[in-house]
């Protein structure tokens, strides 16, 4: 599980960084979205995906053995906040990129005024 997550996070970061470095504004915004989602996946992983107990996950109190593998509830709360924030940021980035396109008349960021 950890290996799969590590590979996924690595791939997401690599792809996000690749998109961030493109000339096309839409790809840059995609890159931002993927980059922040990679950070979110990383955050969930940092809680450690382990078999839960009734102590670590109180919701499982009524659950019968065996407990499913789960991650720390604190990081889930953190990620929830982070997802909402990155949603807002992405929405703003999209709106701003449309305005920037209208004003600068090109989607190629290297052709914008300094």
């Amino acid at each position: 599980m950890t290996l799969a997550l590590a590979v996924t996070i690595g791939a997401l970061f690599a792809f996000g960084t690749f998109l961030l470095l493109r000339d096309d504004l839409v790809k840059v915004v995609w890159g931002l979205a993927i980059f922040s989602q990679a950070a979110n996946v990383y955050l969930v992983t940092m809680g450690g995906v382990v078999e839960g107990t009734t102590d670590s996950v109180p919701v499982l109190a009524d659950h019968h053995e065996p407990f499913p593998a789960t991650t720390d509830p604190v990081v889930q709360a953190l990620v929830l906040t982070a997802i909402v924030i990155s949603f807002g940021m992405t929405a703003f980035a999209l709106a701003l990129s449309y305005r920037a396109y209208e004003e600068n008349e090109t989607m190629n960021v290297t052709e914008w005024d300094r």
Partner: protein
Amino acid sequence: MTELPAIAPVLVALSTGIFTLLARSWPRLQRVVVVAGTLGYAGVVGALSWDVVFASDGARIVYQVGGWRAPFGITLVADGLSVFMLAMTAVVAVYAAVFSVRFIDEHNQQVYYYPLFQFLLLGATGAFLTGDLFNLFVWFEVMLMTSYVFVAFYGNAIHTASAMRYLVLNIVGSALMLLGVGGLYATTGTLNMADMARMLAAGGVAMRPVVGVSALVFVTFALKAGLVPFQFWVPGAYRAAPLPVVAMFVGVTKKVGIYAIIRLYFTVFGTASVPTDVPGVAGDTPLAFLAPVLLVMAVASIVVGGFGALGRDSLEGLFAYSSIGQIGFIAVPIGIAAATASETLRKTGLLAGLIFALHHALTKGLLFLATGVIRDTAGTTQLSELGGLGERSPGFASVFLVGSLSLVGIPPLAGFFGKFLVFDTAGRQFATQTAGGFWAVTGASCLLAVLLVGALLTILYSTRAWMGAVWGDQTEPVQTSTVDAGEVAILATLSVIVVAVGVGFEPVYEFAEAAAESALDTDGYVDAVLGGADE
């Protein structure tokens, strides 16, 4: 409720923001609300500072949000360091708000200017008060979200382009901070700063990953502060944003980065021990790793900012680069404080950094607002198109002179003590290094040399701004202009504060000393936050 004052600044900023939003259809009422709200904010911060620093000598006011005890809930901590930063914020915010009323045109005022302004203030206030690492990230985002809108505020080609660059850089920065926070949580198992400090001091936590992961968080803080090599956003954003907001960016947003570095490294990591082997750096705390990095970045900032400011052709550009250099001046003593083993020098270093930060917030705030007056008056801030403002308006010229002289560091203005303490710290560091072998002496003398060069460059570019804008023959745009007497009057009172900070320096020094002491007093911080947890 003795702990209520700690959350009061947050509440005042938040409710003012909401009220300005509600009063959007009544511009006159909205202006009254924003000025009254910001003054109320200053009042609340003043009362809090009095409680924490002057009345009870180094107390901390801790507010557990929602009654959840630390380390389970979110904690707000008002200690000396926090209230020092808040007091600085309050002064800048009051002037930026009052100046906005006259400076921003009617139509733009109605486009959510004031609510955004209050939320920018709210974000910074929360960041200064919070005692929780993830909550710090959230407050950063609150602050950033409004600052994105402000950079894009005028909405033309250049503004949207700057805003897009600023946005991309900061979203990447935020993702890095998230990585850092996640890593710190994974290694220490807590997000509460006091709890983290306690665990790190007790040992038993693997320190190497903590130091490594904290570098990611440090990058985000340095990005906020605009230290080289993360300074790229500064000139573009400062050119695009409305000038009163730029005063907030210099006075508040940048200082949040500096504050976060001090809080995390000195208060939280200060008592942890980790095997170190860094030449020229004493001690065995994670500070030993911060010191060389911060010093190199600070020195680079001074050089880049100083030479950059010499080459700009507009006033905003010049002051934007100047503020990159000045952040270097703030970071040098903090870096020295991290490098030294001596308790007194560490305190002196932090103190010097804080005083310089205060001076920079006031002086550069004054100068950016003065640039606003020039923009309003002449319609341009290009140095080549300006000249003769001194003849046109002697009142404005004297305000600009006070700002420039304080930037250069002429006694008895605020800037003199800032610069004096920075040089004092560097000099003492040099004195302790003389026995430390060739590299230690070379390093310390290079540092002094760069500070001297930086001070010289400050004189050069301030003179350039003065000669270009105020002296000389009146140019076409200046001749046809009328200087807004109200704006000049507002600035005149701010310049009086700049002088007053220098003349009545004693209480300011005591305030900053209390701030530096509380930043270094990890045990007191831990006790104040977690003390009630065992009951």
